[in-house]
C-alpha cells in the first residue's frame, strides 16, 4: 500500500504517518496542501490510499477529493477525510458524502479509531494488498476481535 497523507499541520500529519507506521504501513508520501497533494498523486500511480485533512490553505481537502473523483485515473483511489466536529463540519460531511468520500474521521481521534477506519476502507474498496499486507490486515482484525472492537 502506498499512502498519501495531506495536512498543513505538521504535528497532525506526522501523527497520521506514525499511526500508519504502527499499523505496519511504511510506504507513505506527504503533502502540505491540496495543490501539492494533487500534483503528487497525479504523478505517482502507485499511490492507492489518500488521507487528507479538510481545512487547508490553497486547495482544501474537499476540493482535492472532488478533483480526484473527477479524474478517471484517480477516482478509484480510496479517500479518508479528516475533519473537526462542529455543526458546520457535520454539514460538510454531508457535502463530502455527495463527493464520494470513502470514510471520514473526526478530530481528535486515537489509534484504535484510525485503524478501524483505514481497515474498513481497505476491505470495502478491495485495495490491492501484497501478501505481507494482507497478512497484516488479517492480523489486525484478529487482534481487534480479541479486544472486542467491532
Amino acid at each position, binding site marked *: 500500500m502506498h499512502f498519501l497523507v495531506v495536512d*498543513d*499541520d505538521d*504535528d*497532525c500529519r506526522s*501523527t*497520521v504517518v*506514525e*499511526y500508519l507506521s*504502527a499499523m505496519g504501513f511504511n510506504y507513505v508520501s506527504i503533502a502540505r496542501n491540496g495543490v501539492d497533494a494533487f500534483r503528487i498523486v497525479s504523478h505517482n500511480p502507485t499511490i492507492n490510499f489518500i488521507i487528507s485533512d479538510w*481545512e*487547508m*490553505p*490553497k486547495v482544501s481537502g474537499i476540493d482535492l477529493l472532488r478533483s480526484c473523483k473527477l479524474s478517471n485515473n484517480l477516482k478509484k483511489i480510496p479517500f479518508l477525510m479528516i475533519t*473537526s*466536529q*462542529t455543526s*458546520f463540519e457535520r454539514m460538510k460531511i454531508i457535502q463530502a458524502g455527495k463527493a464520494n468520500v470513502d470514510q471520514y474521521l473526526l*478530530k*481528535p*481521534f*486515537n*489509534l484504535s479509531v484510525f485503524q478501524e477506519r483505514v481497515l474498513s476502507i481497505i476491505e470495502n474498496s478491495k485495495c490491492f494488498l501484497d501478501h505481507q499486507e494482507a497478512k497484516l490486515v488479517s492480523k489486525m482484525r484478529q487482534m481487534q476481535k480479541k479486544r472486542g472492537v467491532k
Partner: protein
Amino acid sequence: MDDLASILVINESNGAGCMDVWGLDSSEVQSIEGFSVFLVDSGEQAVEVVKSKINGKGRFYIVFLEVTQESLDHSFSIILAIQAADPTVYFVIVSDSPHKLGSSINPWIKDEFKDQWDYLIRPFTKVELLQKSIQMAGACLQKRRLEQLNRQILLVDRYACIGRLAKSVGHEFSNILQRIIGKVDISLMETELETIFNHLKIVLSATERASIIVRNLQSFYSSETDFKIESVGVPLEVAISLMGHELVRNSIDFERSFSNIPSIRLNVGSLSQVFLNIMIHSVRIMHKSGKILAATELATRFNDKYGVNIKFYVSSPGGLLNVSSDEFDLKCFLGGGSSQSNLYELGLAASRQIALSHGGDLFVEQFDNNAATFCVWLPLLSER
C-alpha cells in the same frame, strides 16, 4: 397598543386643564378612552410614581405637565427628573402662553429628547386632549418598539459572535488535542527514550498553545471598568492568537503596519473582540484567499477630535462577495450603503457598540468588489 397605555397628569397649579376636561380624581386610576390615567399633585410625587411603575414592570407613555409662566423652571426640573427615571417617556406641556414656551423649554431638553415633547394650549376640548394623547402614545410606542428591536438585534449579533468564536476556537482545540492524543498514543508503543522525549516535547508545546488560547479567552471577559492605558497592538495580538490559524487555513496573508502611535485608554478584552470580529468578517467576504493589512494612522473625527484610526484593508484576488450573495446582504454590512449607523449584520453592531463605549467609532470606509476597508477610530488620551 398592547394594553391600556398609561398617562400621568401632573397638576401642581390646580389650574383648569386635563384634570377638569377629563374630570380626574387623584384618589383613583381612571380608564379614559383606552388610556389608564393617573393624577398626581406634585412633581416629587410624579417622579416617585414613575419609578414605582417601572419597578412594577410597567411604564408611562405620556406625562401631561400643567405649567404656568411662573413655574417654568420648576416644571422643567420635574421633566429632567422623570427623564432620568424613564428616558423613553413622552411629555405634553399644558400651558396658557404658547409664545414663550418653545424658547424657554429648548435649553432644558437634551438633544436626544428633542422629539419627545409637545405642548397643548389651554383651553382645549376633550377631543383635542384625546387626539394629543393618541398621537404622543403612538410615537412613544413606536420609539420603544424600535429600541426593543435594536436590543434584540444586538443580542442576536452577540450570540452570533460567540458562535463564530466557539467554532474557531473549537477547531483549533481539536488540532491541539489531536497532537496530544496522537503523540501519547505513539509514545505508549515506543521503546526508545529519545523518541518518547521528542513526542513529549510536542505534547508540552501543544498544551502551552492551549493555555495561551484559554488565557486569551479569559481576557475576553471584561467589565466596563477594565479600561487602561495600552497600545492598540495589545488587543490586536489577542485577536490574532485566536484567529491566526483560521487565516492560515483560508490562505489569507496578514500584515500589520503600525506607526508610532501613543498608547490610548482602552479595554483590551472588549477591543480584541472588535478586531476579531473584523477579521472574521474579512475572511467571510473573501473568495478563498486574500490579504488583510492592519495599519494605524493619526486622524481627527467628531469635530476635529484627535484620535487614531486602526484600519483593516481587506482584498482578495478572487474579489469580495457582492451584494447579490445569498449568504448575506452587504446592504446590512454597509448600513444601507450610505448610513454608517446600521452595521447590524455579522457582529459589527456589537463591535460598533464597543467602539462607541471607547468614545470612538467603527465604520466601513470603502467597499467594492475588490477591496474593503474597515476602520476603528479611537480618541487619543488628551481628548478624553
